[in-house]
């Protein structure tokens, strides 16, 4: 090994320390820059009208995004109703029945593949399956796309959480003559309640900021959402459309919607993460 003077080695070490501290600072600075921008530009757009009124026609001042807010809530709700039970069931099978079998490995592999699939591809898939066949963009197609994105996330997190429940609990229940399904739903679920809830919340937070899978499924609409069988207004596609428009009012609304989306997604993430951290410290 080459011999180097101590001063040289200390110098290199100091340099690297400096660089890595600056890099961490850079990351935090970028986060603050992005969040600061969203707050500064989105803040002025948030007012009573923003939550209660329909968008104004182009060029007209005022208006709000009440329809898009409601649409996003409805689409996300339907996605949760479709995606969470199936994902949970898949997680139960992996943790309780499949375990280390070949089939279970295949399911896990498929879930990982699905998690790594770009969300725009899910959009294309749902377009071909639901929009092309019905000839109609629809809120339900958007919800299905979001549900497909949630599905593998819920399956894998719930498997991990259920696997943590001590098997003594299951065995105790089974020894009392409780059928397997009841032991799972009544005992294992109850023991894993908070974990399952936070896992689901994180999955919901993740999909509620998604845009790409809604672009050509739910599309967008300037009207109130009336049925899931027609294009449905939603916040994220509205941001995309309005940001690309030449109207200042619309761009302001897009910033307001960005603030709303960012605040709800980050808020949910921080609260659930903080809660998990708090719990892990208690036990």
């Amino acid at each position, binding site marked *: 090994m080459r011999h180097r003077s101590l001063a040289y080695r200390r110098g290199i070490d100091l340099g690297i320390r400096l660089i890595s501290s600056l890099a961490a600072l850079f990351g935090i600075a970028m986060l603050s820059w992005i969040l600061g921008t969203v707050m500064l530009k989105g803040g002025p757009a948030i007012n009573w009208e923003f939550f209660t009124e329909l968008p104004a026609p182009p060029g007209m001042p005022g208006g709000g995004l009440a329809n898009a807010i409601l649409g996003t809530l409805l689409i996300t709700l339907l996605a949760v109703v479709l995606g969470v039970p199936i994902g949970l069931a898949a997680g139960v099978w992996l943790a309780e029945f499949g375990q280390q079998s070949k089939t279970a490995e295949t399911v896990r592999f498929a879930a990982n593949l699905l998690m790594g699939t*770009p969300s725009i591809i899910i959009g*294309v898939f749902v377009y071909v399956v639901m929009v092309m066949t019905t000839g109609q963009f629809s809120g339900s197609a958007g919800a299905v796309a979001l549900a497909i994105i949630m599905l593998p996330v819920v399956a894998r997190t719930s498997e991990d959480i259920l696997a943590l429940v001590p098997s003594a609990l299951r065995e105790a229940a089974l020894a009392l003559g409780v059928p397997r399904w009841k032991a799972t739903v009544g005992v294992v679920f109850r023991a894993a309640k908070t974990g399952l809830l936070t896992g689901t919340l994180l999955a919901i937070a993740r999909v509620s900021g998604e845009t790409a899978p809604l672009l050509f499924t739910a599309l967008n609409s300037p009207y109130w959402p009336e049925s899931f069988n027609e294009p449905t207004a939603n916040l994220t596609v509205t941001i995309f459309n309005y*940001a690309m428009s030449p109207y200042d009012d619309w761009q302001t609304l897009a910033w307001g919607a960005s603030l709303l989306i*960012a605040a709800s997604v980050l808020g949910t993430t921080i609260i659930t993460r903080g809660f998990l951290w708090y719990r892990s410290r208690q036990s």
Partner: protein
Amino acid sequence: MQPKTHTNLDPTFRWLTLASGLGVVLLVAGILYTLVIGAMPALKHFGFGFLVSQSWDPAFMEFGALSSVYGTLISTAIGMLIAVPLSLVIALFLVELAPPAVSRLAGGAIELLAAIPSIIYGMWGLFVFAPFLADHVQPRLAELIPGFPLFEGPPMGIGMLSAGIILALMVLPFITSVTRDVFQMVPAVVKESAYGMGSTTWEVTRKVTIPYGIQGVVGACFLGLGRAIGETMAVTFVIGNRHEISASLFAAGNSIASTLANEFTEASDELYLGALIELGLVLFGVTLLLQLVARWWLRRTARKMGAVR
């Protein structure tokens, strides 16, 4: 007491949950099948030439994937070139240098970057970052090396460079958090023995921590790569959406995902739609391949580590 006769629900429960699990497998197969069927008109019409043709002209029904594939590759490459070294030093800071309280806060902030929806990156990129790049960074880069082909053309802000930088920010938290976990797994004894020999922190990192965790770090990079390659909204906002290949990083371009996002709803013709779906198929194929490689790599690593111990 006479026991009530129950219908045994256990088999039903078992089959229902199994069906949900298999549903995930079917879904992946279904996506692949659907994309192939949807792309059929274009697959038949253009054949292999689709991948190497640069022309994209909906008016004349001429479609080629080359500019989109090129844009995806270049923007991802820029993103990874920035994100990988940056993540490594940030992970180093979090594990080796920062006091625990600072490390937790800074680590949390970096992880928060991953929770920001991509459309927010897009808004910030289009309205704040791209103009900043055009006013302050690009003119300086152009002055720095006059006539350098990568930095030619007017500084518009929007283009490959800004798309790449924003991608870097988006994958940074993923690579950082995996790298941090890997660094933390290095046994303290091994590090302490190096410190005991008089090594500096950087020497311990370079000669002990990184060699010990290199495979995990490579796995993390695959993960980040998979994210970057399919990222849609942030790229669509800032890449400029132009179906041409330019050597300059300042020039506008497009990526597979941005082309899909911009043109999918406009495609009225069967062939146009087929070409777009085929682009999606290419993207899906690439991400599948990346994940297979990553999985194979991690397996090999696990086996190797198992053999050592």
